[in-house]
């Protein structure tokens, strides 16, 4: 006997992501999901840039990691609230982990909530967590061919940050190759070039962040 169904398998996951988004909308906070390979500078970006936001802007970070609380410890001085989520062997954060993360935060005291996803260019791209925007990092040492190799990650990005650009000359990085690949995959997301060492591009990142607040 065949039972025809036509039901989205992702309903439960997407429904929970919507619940998360609803909770964040209710208190008017803006949630940015940050995705990239390991070592491309997600933690450093937050560490350096959050203290540069205008005075009075309240930030929080949900930090995903397989093991250790190292990133959370690094961020303690940059954000008012930091919650570590250890996934064990899980290769991406899930909406239910974000739900528990939200439970652990004082949501009424947050303007921006950053989700530092697990370092991985595949799995995190496939899950909506309830965020409002997705920021994707690509660091120069990873190579200029990665947009074409991981198109879905970049297709779903709202902003793309090319990081560690101070190494571009040394590594003979071809920015044009990145832009050329993006011209077929995502022409809507702004591409920002950053160096956390020199501080280059941080202003553009902060401007982008501020522009994401409702009413801005």
């Amino acid at each position, binding site marked *: 006997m065949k*039972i*025809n169904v*036509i039901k989205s398998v992702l309903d439960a996951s997407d429904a929970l992501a919507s619940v998360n988004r609803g909770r964040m909308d209710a208190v008017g906070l803006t949630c940015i999901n940050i995705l990239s390979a390991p070592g491309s500078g997600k933690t450093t970006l937050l560490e350096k840039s959050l203290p540069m936001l205008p005075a009075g802007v309240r930030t929080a970070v949900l930090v995903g990691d397989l093991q250790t609380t190292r990133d959370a410890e690094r961020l303690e001085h940059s954000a008012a609230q930091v919650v570590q989520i250890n996934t064990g062997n899980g290769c991406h954060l899930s909406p239910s982990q974000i739900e528990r993360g939200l439970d652990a935060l004082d949501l009424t005291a947050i303007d921006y909530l950053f989700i530092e996803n697990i370092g991985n260019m595949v799995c995190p*791209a*496939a899950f909506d967590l309830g965020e409002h925007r997705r920021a994707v990092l690509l660091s120069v040492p990873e190579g200029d061919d990665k947009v074409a190799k991981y198109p879905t990650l970049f297709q779903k990005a709202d902003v793309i940050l090319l990081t560690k650009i101070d190494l571009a000359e040394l590594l003979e990085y071809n920015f044009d190759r990145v832009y050329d690949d993006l011209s*077929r*995959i995502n022409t809507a997301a702004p591409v920002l070039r950053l160096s956390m060492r020199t501080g280059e591009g941080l202003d553009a990142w902060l401007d982008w962040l501020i522009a994401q607040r409702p009413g801005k």
Partner: protein
Amino acid sequence: MHEMSIADGVLRAVLDAAGGCGGRRVERVELAVGEMRLVVPEALEMAWQVVSEGTIAAGAELAVVETPMEARCRRCGRQFAPRIDNYLCPGCGLADVDILAGDDIILKSVVCDVEQPSGESKINANASDA
């Protein structure tokens, strides 16, 4: 290996639908997978075997077909079939789209182990939240 989370979702949907099987074993599961969900079929198959163990769907064959991609240009409204690595709108030459199909995983049917020579019994359990 996000296939484990996906297999979990598949199992939930299958067991829901298999209510119509009257508790009989599930023989076959038909799944339409969108390319943008980045599923490796072999990994999903392995994950399926793990999560379905001990349920009425244990050992059920997982038949996976790929859903063709479909997108609508946010700039000019044109509907077209992109590729996983190319979302250029043939109308305006920009890559700024809403994905209409290919970013989903749909359970299409569940086959139960029942002798029923007089054809198929169809229960359309269209998801209320679809």
